[in-house]
């Protein structure tokens, strides 16, 4: 399903200075698998997620998702690909604080111009799936960290994506809420989603639902 082949990713710091985020990394993830990318901060985990989502392009190598080379998609096609295939859960949730839960969740649906009935149907499904029905009209800035996390997951899942990418999803959560998140991940895996989690949280290591752990160190696969 996901194949990274000999990926190198450099970021320009200045015109003359570059940092190597990924150095000839290859990996393969099958459909329906849950994979944990582990490693210290700056090891290149987030860069891998960005490449899989088509948010950035590799300096060299190829990123194949469902047989498509994501790295070669134009910006608009990459957006369409994300809209249809990817649900992204960010480290700091990246919700719009002044909007309520409902409007945050439907943000990915806006470009699709769906009917109101279809939107309601989808929203109801994710609100119920992640147990946040009662929070629907509350502004997210007034929610707890765990609740915000669930809203972020609901937003990522609203389009029923094949792949869920989560970047340090428990970095801002306590242990109880982190365990709740893991339960959600298990549920999503049962629903058939392919899940890639970038984390250095030990809670994820050795989990039953995790099919594979990939360790990165200084941009290289260990």
């Amino acid at each position, binding site marked *: 399903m996901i194949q990274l082949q000999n990926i190198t990713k450099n970021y320009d710091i200045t015109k003359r200075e570059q940092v190597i985020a990924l150095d000839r990394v290859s990996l393969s993830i099958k459909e329906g698998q849950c994979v944990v990318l582990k490693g210290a901060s700056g090891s290149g985990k987030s860069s891998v997620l960005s490449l899989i989502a088509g*948010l*950035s392009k590799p300096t060299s190598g190829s990123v194949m998702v469902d047989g498509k080379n994501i790295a070669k998609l134009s910006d608009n096609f990459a*957006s369409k690909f994300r809209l249809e295939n990817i649900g992204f859960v960010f480290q700091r949730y*990246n919700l719009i604080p002044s909007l309520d839960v409902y409007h945050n969740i439907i943000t990915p*649906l806006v*470009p699709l111009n769906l009917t109101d009935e279809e*939107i309601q149907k989808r929203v109801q499904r994710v609100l119920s799936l992640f147990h946040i029905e009662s929070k629907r009209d509350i502004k997210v800035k007034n929610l707890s960290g765990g609740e915000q996390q669930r809203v972020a997951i609901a937003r990522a899942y609203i389009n029923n994506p094949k792949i869920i990418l989560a970047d340090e999803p428990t970095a801002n959560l306590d242990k109880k809420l982190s365990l709740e998140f893991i339960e959600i991940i298990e549920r999503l895996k049962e629903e058939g989603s392919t899940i890639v989690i970038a984390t250095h949280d030990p809670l994820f290591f050795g989990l039953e639902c995790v099919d594979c752990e990939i360790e990165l160190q200084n941009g290289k696969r260990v």
Partner: protein
Amino acid sequence: MWKKIINLHLVEYAIAALLRQKSKTVFIVTIFVSLISLLLSFFFIVNSIKYELSLTEDTLPQIILQNQKMGRVSDIDTALVDDLLQLEGVTDVQARVWGYYYFSNQDIYFTLVGIDSFENIYKKGFTLFRDSDELEKDVIYIGDGVEKLFSKSYYKDFFNFVTPDLKVVKLNIAGVFKAENRLESNDVIVMSKANARKVFGLDDEKATDIALWIANPKEIDTIAQKLKQLYPTYKVITHDDIVLGYEKLFNYKSGVFLVLFIVTLFTFFMIIYEKMSGMSSQERKEVGILKAIGWSIDDIIKEKFYEAWLVAFFSYLLGVVIAFFYVYILNAPFLRNIFLDSNDYAQQFELPFIVDLQTLFLVFFLSVPLYLASVIIPAWRVATLDADEVMR
């Protein structure tokens, strides 16, 4: 069908985005509305005054002959009228008696016009005389502005004019006229020529100037030339000279004002551009999030377009309404004094309601598309960056 063309969810998102940044939105709308309303008020006033001036032009004589002494206009001999009537092409000649009368109570000048009942010079403009014979009696007809100033000094039924040799000429106020051209007639007092001569201390065989009407307007210049040869010491003014004089003064004032406005408008867009191009880190991050969750560059630009369009169009409409209200209901206080004399007449003169679609379109195209560009271009620049770079 239209729901497919316009994505209402995107419009809804744009409205929510504007409401999220209330203070910024209010700031931009306030500046935008102020500028649109000021610019439109300026154009509305200009159009109204131009309309009034065009009415004035119609009532002007085709040639005016003035006597001069020491470079100043002096009284002219009425005996010349018969000689001038002999000139080929001249259809009518009138010795006009008119001038300014200083009203010390209000520190203001009235325009006194003497007319005879048989004259048709002013009839075109002043159509509301009840009975022209009444002018032969000791009465005056006054313009709107004069009436208001008279009543301030408690002159309701009559007015006492003081002649240069300090005699008092008491004339009854027979009525108020509302002439077609209010700009010109507002400060006018009409009386018989005999009374006007008394007030000005002018001899019976003297007049202020002589007005000539020509059968064929194409011959005006030729006849003017002939008059200059016949009366080399007299000043000959043609209809075009008078109109040009009005326009020169008026265009100068409006030109200076327009330049000031263009500079202001340009500054406004520089501020807006500066504000928008330096999109806040929060806004840049939002663009990055939207891209990350699947919005395309087109979607982001469309959303920004709706945001900008809502602000610009709402501000434009509000600006138009305010300008209409300010100019035609409130009669443009303060701003009108830039174009009109800042005396009490000008304040009492009501600007005629003239709707010029060209002006509305001009201001629209001068402001709205520029604002749209100043919002969309920076948003496009951010949207074309890699999303992870924007969020970093």
